[in-house]
C-alpha cells in the first residue's frame, strides 16, 4: 500500500504539474520541493504551490529500446530532458511522435496519459507526458 499512498500524495504534481515557488528568491521547483535548496532556512513556510503550464523545450533526448513491461506497446519511445518555461528541467516521455521527428530545441506541451497499471486488478497510474507542440 506504500506505493498507493505515494501515488495519492503526488497526484497534484503528477496529474496537473503543480510545482512550488520559493517566495524568498522566486525560483520555481518541479517536482515540488519542501525547502528551497538556495535559500534553505529562509524558505521555510514560503514554498507556495504554483501551476506549471506544461510548455517547454527539448534540450536533450534518448530513444529507449529496452523498455519496462508497461511500455511494451510504445517501444521504441523517446525520453527527453525538457526545460520548462517556468525554469525547472524535468525528464519526460514524448508521445505520438516518431524518434526521427524529435529535435533539440523542439517545443513541447504536456498531455495527460496513462503511465502504468498495477496488474489487471490494480490501480491505474496517470500522469504527465509530452507531445511536440506544432
Amino acid at each position, binding site marked *: 500500500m506504500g506505493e498507493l499512498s505515494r501515488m495519492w500524495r503526488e497526484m497534484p504534481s503528477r496529474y496537473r504539474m*503543480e510545482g512550488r515557488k520559493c517566495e524568498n528568491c522566486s525560483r520555481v521547483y518541479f517536482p515540488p520541493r519542501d525547502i528551497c535548496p538556495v535559500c534553505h532556512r529562509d524558505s521555510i513556510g514560503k514554498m507556495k504551490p504554483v*501551476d506549471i503550464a506544461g510548455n517547454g523545450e527539448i534540450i536533450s533526448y534518448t530513444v529507449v529500446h529496452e523498455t519496462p513491461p508497461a511500455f511494451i*506497446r*510504445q517501444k521504441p519511445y523517446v525520453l527527453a530532458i525538457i526545460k520548462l518555461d517556468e525554469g525547472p528541467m524535468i525528464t519526460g516521455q514524448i508521445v505520438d511522435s516518431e524518434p526521427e521527428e524529435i529535435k533539440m530545441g523542439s517545443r513541447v506541451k504536456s498531455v*495527460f496519459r*496513462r503511465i502504468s497499471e498495477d496488474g*489487471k486488478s490494480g490501480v491505474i497510474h*496517470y500522469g504527465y507526458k509530452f507531445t511536440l507542440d*506544432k
Partner: protein
Amino acid sequence: MSGIVSYGSYIPKYRVKPDEIARVWGEDPENIKNGIFILSKSVPSPDEDTATISVEAARNALRRGGMSGQEIGSIYVGSESHPYAVKPTATIVSAAIGADFKMFAADYEFACKAGTAGMQNVLGMVDAGMIKYGMAIGADTSQGAPGDVLEYSASAGGTAMIIGRERVAAEIKSTLSVTSDTPDFWRREGQPYPTHGERFTGEPAYFRHVTNAAKMMMERMQTKPEDYDYAVFHQPNGKFPTRAAKVLGFQEKQYKEGLLTPVIGNTYSASMMTGLSAILDAAKPGDRILAVSFGSGAGSDAFHIEVTEEIEELHKRNVTTVRKMLEDVKFVDYAIYAKFKKKIVFGEEVE
C-alpha cells in the same frame, strides 16, 4: 438563459482506414466504404483511455473559456468505456483539472448518449441554482470485436461542455428526451466486445428515436428545418445521420459541418457532442442549432441551441479546433492498430 459557456474536444492522433481492416478479414473495402461511409477512424495510443481523453477535452474547454478548474461545480462523464468498472472517471478528471473538493460528480452510462444526458443534468443543476458552472463530458475508446462490422466504425474521442448561466456562448433554449426498451446493442458485464441485434439497429432504434426527438423539438419550438443554420445528429456511421437529416428535411449545408464520422469513425458518447463542438468552432452570433444524440438501448436527447455574441470571445482564445485535429494525423496499419487497441494480449507477467 443558461447554456454552453465553453466547449473543448480531443481526438487521438492515430487513424486506421477500412481498407486495412478489410484486407485482414478478407472483406471488400469498397463495399464497406459504400455501406457505412467511413473513410478512416481514430485510434487511441496505448496510453490513452476514456479518462485521459476526458481530461484533454476538459482542459481544452477550460482554456477556451479562460476558466480554472476551481470554477466547476459539477462533473459528469458519460461513456461506455470507463477505465474502471468501479471508480468514477469523473474523480480522475476533477483531480486533473484541479477542481474543488466541494463538488458534484458521477459517471453516466447510456451507450452513445451518456454525455448528452450529462449535459441535461448539468443544465438542470444550473437552472435550479445548485451550481454556477458544471461540466458534462462524453468520451469513449469504444471496441468492436475483430472482424465484426463495428470494427470499421468504433473509434475514440471526447468532448467537454461547460454549462452555466453567465457568459453563455450558446443558449440551450430547450431540451427533451425519448426513451424505450429496444434490444439494438448491448454489452454484458465482463464481456470485452458488444453485441448487436442486427434487425433492430436501423429503423426501430436509431431512426425512430432520432427523428421523433427532432420532430418533437421542432414542434415545441415552433420551428421548421429551414429555421436552423446547423443540424447535428449521432453518427454511428456516415450514412445514418445523413439519412435522418434528409428524412427530416435538412439540407447538406446544414449538416456537413458537424458530420465527422466519415473521417474519425464513431466516437460513441463523444459523437454528437464533437459534431456540435465543430459547429461551435464555425458558428456566428444568432445561429440556430438542432442537436440530437442517440444511445442504444435506446433513447435520444434533443437540444435547441442559439449562439450568442460571447462565441466570438471563445474563438479569440485560439484553442485547437476540431478541424485542426482532423489535419494533424498519423495512419497506422492493422498490426499497429491491434497492438495499440490491446487486441494482441500478453500474459499478466509481461505487461
